[in-house]
């Protein structure tokens, strides 16, 4: 087949659609892949759209354009290799795909090329979902799919009978018609835990969250992030805001600068003495690429993600077998009032560890306190008092600390963030001989009245401490609260300027618009939450729970496949029926009436042949059934007059005759 572009206007239209669709599917990648690839892609696409037939590569095997394009492509691939160090993986792979899509569209001249390019476009749409799966992305990509489908439609509209509007309508109808099949596949297709295929290693670098070590500045960076860390749905009672300490990793070791976790033991026997009613809740955790979960202080159980998938340690961390790279949902029970007694030797050593020959000034201060005869409890109080009464400030931009960070912070700069206070406090306690440790996690959360759940953002990241006191066991002490009580009671939002929380200027002017903005935000987050729950996190567990609602409690994947077939086959049969019925042959009402007439005769054993004219058929039929000849000739005459004599006035008469034509079958 020869090139269709030069002479055919339709193909040109479809080419424009194709170009638009491809560009739409490439645009979301602008931030993710090197700019020169996008530019190259756009240049190639525009070149093709500007002169579709000029770059006709099929005519001559070796033309200058062809050689030029080939060299350009090789350079492009080498460029990608140098940029990423590979041509596989998520970013490099997408870059390569975008680059090749540009070259594919430029060489599109035959029917096959067109379809290949089009399906490449559909595939590019899928690649965006490797990065983001939000509602916005889904809507945008639906539009892209619509445009791609439109290009297929215009390409197949040989007679150019359809306007853009009409084709778009058909394309939209086609997509709408595919929804039932899509829903059935979505609901019933067997889910497996974990992604269907291994994601490239670089896929998770963008995930934010708390690290498993703490150094100055590691948390204050998170504070600037508006991303959601997790959402919490409390079953019955909601604890007070000041009790919302979401426990993450526990840090034991320090080298004077950094704090790290070290090994933690399994929790064999629970040393947790509960002193209040349990709080039950469900956490929907965003992926953070770390091997732990968050729970309210103090978690009372293993979240049971699966056999050997998660466990609870003796310092009440919830650890997982694999990094959390997908949004997960787990149910938890916590006890806001508790007592953890028991401190073994190993733990005692760990909780008093300090780097040698550091923090001299602090050491002297503690010695002084000890000399004053203060008890351990009094030393704790004294330290907190120091933070609250001396000129300590809570700030996101503390001055840079060098050398001995604890000493410098405590005696010179006195400006810091939760990590400064927590680490300094723990060092002070350990110097005083009080076992202490740092706990990382989140503090607070925002209640969403629309969806009735709490949202914990990255900006809620926090570090606090726990000290071991003989009578009380491990006790939570939050030195930051001593400096900035509001931070704990009201939440981080009150301690930060509005622009960090993300209220646009036009909404932050007065309280009414601020309320409105909040409300909008809550609704949007609630919608997002539903989307996450039901679309993105629709995993094996959800699927099971959902199907159980329909009485399919114990369903294995083979039965799901069977169900899919049961549901989809009727849809396909129905579609086939509709398609076959609406062939142009049966399109006209007159022809339909005649076919009805032929069917009635067929029941008497007189079958109409496709190439047989009406008069010939009437003669044959009348010969076989003399008793019907009058009727047959009547109907045939009217039919001829309408269909070949264009005498449409007789249509009702034909209807009447065909209806009343009831040949006996013998």
């Amino acid at each position, binding site marked *: 087949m020869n090139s269709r572009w030069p002479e055919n206007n339709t193909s040109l239209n479809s080419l424009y659609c194709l170009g638009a669709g491809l560009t739409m599917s490439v645009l979301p990648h602008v931030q993710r892949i090197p700019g020169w690839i996008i530019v190259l892609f756009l240049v190639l696409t525009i070149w093709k759209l500007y002169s579709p037939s000029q770059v006709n590569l099929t005519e001559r095997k070796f033309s200058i354009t062809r050689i030029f394009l080939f060299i350009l492509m090789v350079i492009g691939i080498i460029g990608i290799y140098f940029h990423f160090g590979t041509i596989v993986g998520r970013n490099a792979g997408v870059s390569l795909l975008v680059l090749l899509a540009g070259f594919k569209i430029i060489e599109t001249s035959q029917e096959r090329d067109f379809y290949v390019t089009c399906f490449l476009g559909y595939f590019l749409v899928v690649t965006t979902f490797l990065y983001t799966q939000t509602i916005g992305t889904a809507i945008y990509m639906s539009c892209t799919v619509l445009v791609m489908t439109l290009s297929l439609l215009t390409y197949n509209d040989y007679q150019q009978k359809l306007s853009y509007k009409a084709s778009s309508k058909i394309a939209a109808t086609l997509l709408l018609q595919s929804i039932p099949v899509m829903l059935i596949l979505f609901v019933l297709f067997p889910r497996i835990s974990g992604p269907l295929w291994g994601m490239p290693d670089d896929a998770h670098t963008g995930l934010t969250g708390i690290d498993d070590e703490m150094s100055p500045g590691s948390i204050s960076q998170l504070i600037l992030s508006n991303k959601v860390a997790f959402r919490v749905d409390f079953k019955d009672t909601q604890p007070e805001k000041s009790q919302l300490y979401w426990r993450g990793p526990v840090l034991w070791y320090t080298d004077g600068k950094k704090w790290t976790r070290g090994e933690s033991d399994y929790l064999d026997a629970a040393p947790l003495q509960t002193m209040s009613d349990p709080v039950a809740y469900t956490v929907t955790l965003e992926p953070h690429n770390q091997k732990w979960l968050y729970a309210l202080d103090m978690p009372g159980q293993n979240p049971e993600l699966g056999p050997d998938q998660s466990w609870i340690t003796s310092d009440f961390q919830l650890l997982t077998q694999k990094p959390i790279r997908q949004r997960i949902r787990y149910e938890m029970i916590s006890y806001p009032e508790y007592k953890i007694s028991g401190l073994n030797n190993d733990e005692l050593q760990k909780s008093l560890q300090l780097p040698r020959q550091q923090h001299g000034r602090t050491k002297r201060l503690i010695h002084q306190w000890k000399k004053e005869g203060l008890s351990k409890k009094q030393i704790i109080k004294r330290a907190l008092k120091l933070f609250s009464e001396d000129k300590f400030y809570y700030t996101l931009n503390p001055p840079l600390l060098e050398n001995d960070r604890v000493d410098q912070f405590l005696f010179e700069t006195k400006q810091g963030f939760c990590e400064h206070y927590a680490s300094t406090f723990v060092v002070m306690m350990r110097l005083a001989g009080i076992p202490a440790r740092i706990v990382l996690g989140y503090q607070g959360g925002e209640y969403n009245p629309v969806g009735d759940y709490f949202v914990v953002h990255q900006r809620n990241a926090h570090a606090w401490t726990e000290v071991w006191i003989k009578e009380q066991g491990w006790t939570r002490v939050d030195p930051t609260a001593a400096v900035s009580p509001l931070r704990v009671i009201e939440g981080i939002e009150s301690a930060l300027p509005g622009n960090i929380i993300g209220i646009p200027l036009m909404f932050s002017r007065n309280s009414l618009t601020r309320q409105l903005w909040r409300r909008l935000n809550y609704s949007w987050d609630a919608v997002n939450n539903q989307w996450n729950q039901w679309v993105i996190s629709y995993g094996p567990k959800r699927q099971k729970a959902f199907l159980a609602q329909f009485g399919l409690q114990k369903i294995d994947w083979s039965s799901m496949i069977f169900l899919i077939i049961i549901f989809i086959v009727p849809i396909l049969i129905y579609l086939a029926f509709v398609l076959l019925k609406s062939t*142009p*042959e049966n399109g*006209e009402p007159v*022809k339909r009436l005649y076919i009805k007439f032929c069917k009635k005769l067929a029941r008497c054993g007189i079958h109409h042949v*496709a*190439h*047989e*004219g*009406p*008069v*010939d058929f009437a003669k044959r039929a009348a010969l076989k059934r003399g008793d019907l000849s009058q009727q047959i000739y009547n109907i045939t005459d009217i039919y*001829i*007059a309408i*269909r*070949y*004599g*264009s005498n449409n006035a007789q249509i009702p008469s034909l209807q009447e005759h065909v209806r009343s034509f009831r040949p006996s079958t013998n």
Partner: protein
Amino acid sequence: MNTAQIDMQTNSTKGELDKIVEEISHVILGKEKAIRLSLTCLLARGHLLIEDLPGMGKTTLTHVLANILGLDYQRIQFTSDLLPADILGVSIFNRESSSFSFHPGPVFSQLILADEINRATPRAQSALLEAMEESQITVEGETRPLPKPFFVIATQNPSNQVGTFPLPESQLDRFTMRIELGYPDNMAERELLKGCDRRELLKNITPVINSERLIEMQKQAESIHVSDALLDYLQDLLEYSRRSADYVNGLSPRAGLSVLRCARTWALMQGHPQVLPEDIQQVLPSIISHRLTKVQDDGYTTQENIAAHLIKQVPIP
């Protein structure tokens, strides 16, 4: 003109044509279909090629047609030494007027019988074929119109006979129809043998209509109604012949026009107020068989076969 009047006219024309067919049938026995087809061809302003073995009545049919339609008539016997001037005419020097005067050849008549056209050389053949297409000839720099109506009925022996120059496809395309007469059936043969000499019968034939009436009928045929549904069918047929891998080449647009014109005339002859798919199917074989060539011609492909195959393949929309 309202429909009733049209119907009446159609019916009267049908009557006349039936009478012509009947008259001819007295001479050419048992060949009503061939007679009707040749009449159709002439009424559709087409040229007719009759191909058959010698002695099947080709020439007789032509004679009868000319006589009964009241056309003036010339016969050109094509032989291998026939020159174009023998057909078109020649200028001869007139001593008295001291100038050349043109002596028109046999082509200047309403009906020409080109007998055994494939026995002449291509040079002589082309002289006639040009006249057929243009309805005018150019001799010695002067263009001369041919009379109206202008028909050519050519006869030829099957091309596998000795001493023939087969017409090339491009020239065959100029003949609207090609028909075969074939052997008479048993009864017709008996009647033929019992009856008197055909040449005697020819002398007794009187014209039923004249050339003016013939032109009128041509116009009438052209006004027969053709619906979109019928055009769809015709286009499907043409499309199939072009797309199908069975044929070397598809049907030309000229072939399509010929089919439509002949179908209209056939409908007129049947007294139909509109053209029906059956009319197309009736005229189709004689119009397309000399235009379509099967890719693998097995040697048994007859005119009917090739058309019947095409008709069977294309459903009536």
